[in-house]
């Protein structure tokens, strides 16, 4: 989805504030612990997607762990493990119930082990090769940031294959794919800047330049 989370390059968020806190309040610590340890079917990709699907105003208005707490409730609710009416009653407060758009599909199993996979084909691209980040707009979860779509870059590293978030977030299989570090010139991305930006892109996000 082209969601509110995809903020790379956006203007308007103001200057850096040196806030060194990991948690601002005990409830953020609770939110982290609950989201990390609640038992349910699902995976990291569908958790990230639940965060992305939160109402955009809630997303921007909440702090990091506010989004975690919201996404946790959404995920539990979507699996019929809890009822937000009950949370409303217990919280006895004006705390807004997190709203989210529906997912294109929820995983029905949880993964074992990490996301790295060995696959029986060779990477399509090699270090030094020019590629274009495809201009894709999938309805579901993706890790292809808007700011690189349609732009030329150069492969600088070939990583191992990883579970593909675009399918795994929805229970459509792991479909592991090679990942590449693709380097883009800031001057191409933004029309200004002398730096480079390297983005890790899954093979299906790329085409040969």
């Amino acid at each position, binding site marked *: 989805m082209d969601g509110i989370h995809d903020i790379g390059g956006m203007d308007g968020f103001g200057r850096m504030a040196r806030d060194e806190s990991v948690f601002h309040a005990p409830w953020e610590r609770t939110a982290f612990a609950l989201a990390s*340890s609640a038992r349910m079917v699902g995976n990291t990709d569908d958790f990230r997607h639940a965060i992305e699907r939160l109402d955009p105003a809630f997303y921007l208005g909440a702090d990091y762990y506010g989004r975690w707490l919201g996404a946790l409730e959404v995920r*539990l609710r979507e699996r019929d493990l809890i009822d937000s009416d009950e949370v409303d009653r217990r919280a006895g407060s004006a705390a807004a119930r997190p709203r989210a758009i529906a997912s294109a599909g929820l995983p029905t199993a949880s993964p074992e082990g990490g*996301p790295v996979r060995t696959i029986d084909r060779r990477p399509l691209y090699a270090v030094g090769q020019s590629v274009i980040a495809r201009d894709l707009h999938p309805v579901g979860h993706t890790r292809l940031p808007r700011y690189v779509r349609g732009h030329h870059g150069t492969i600088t590293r070939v*990583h191992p294959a990883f579970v593909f978030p675009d399918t795994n977030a929805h229970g459509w299989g792991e479909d592991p794919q090679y990942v590449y570090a693709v380097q883009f010139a800031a001057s191409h991305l933004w029309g200004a800047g002398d730096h480079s930006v390297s983005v*890790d892109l899954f093979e299906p996000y790329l085409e040969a330049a």
Partner: protein
Amino acid sequence: MTDHDHDHDPRALRAEALEAILIERGLVDPAVIDSTLDYFENDLGPMLGAQVVAKAWADPAFKRRLLDDGLGAIAELGLGGPQVDHLVVVENTPDVHNVVVCTLCSCYPWGLLGLPPAWYKSLAYRSRVVREPRNVLAEMGCELPDDIEVRVWDSSAEVRYFVLPERPNGTDGLPEDVLAEHVHRDQMIGVAR
């Protein structure tokens, strides 16, 4: 804001309500909550990454292995852990400065640096550092000379990036545990030199 105020924060009330329901339903185990927090708050932290940096400074062969195969090299030190499924270590030099971000969420090598500070997760950092890294770093107290090349790494997949800072002058011959004290978390993210 005091802790008392936090108790009345509606988000705090919602978090507590959710916690109570999850415990009642058996969906979380209070013992697991405690051990999770204990692990993240006490076992993990920038001291682990600092140990890696110190060893790379002290041991050229380790440094080569670290730059070549980050995960394999840190495993020699018994390190790895959550959110470090694949590791790429990028080296700062007199000519190159590296800085790490995750624009889409806030991916971070928990297993080497612990949980990230609020600014790393902030909308300002995530949105701006890919577009105007020199300004962002300057606002954080790190003015980069114009002739240093800046490379920004957006950890958009499950690869985690870790910056190997330059060894400071005047640290020749120091043992690794003392060298590690010279390493700050911000250097390993790349918002300090």
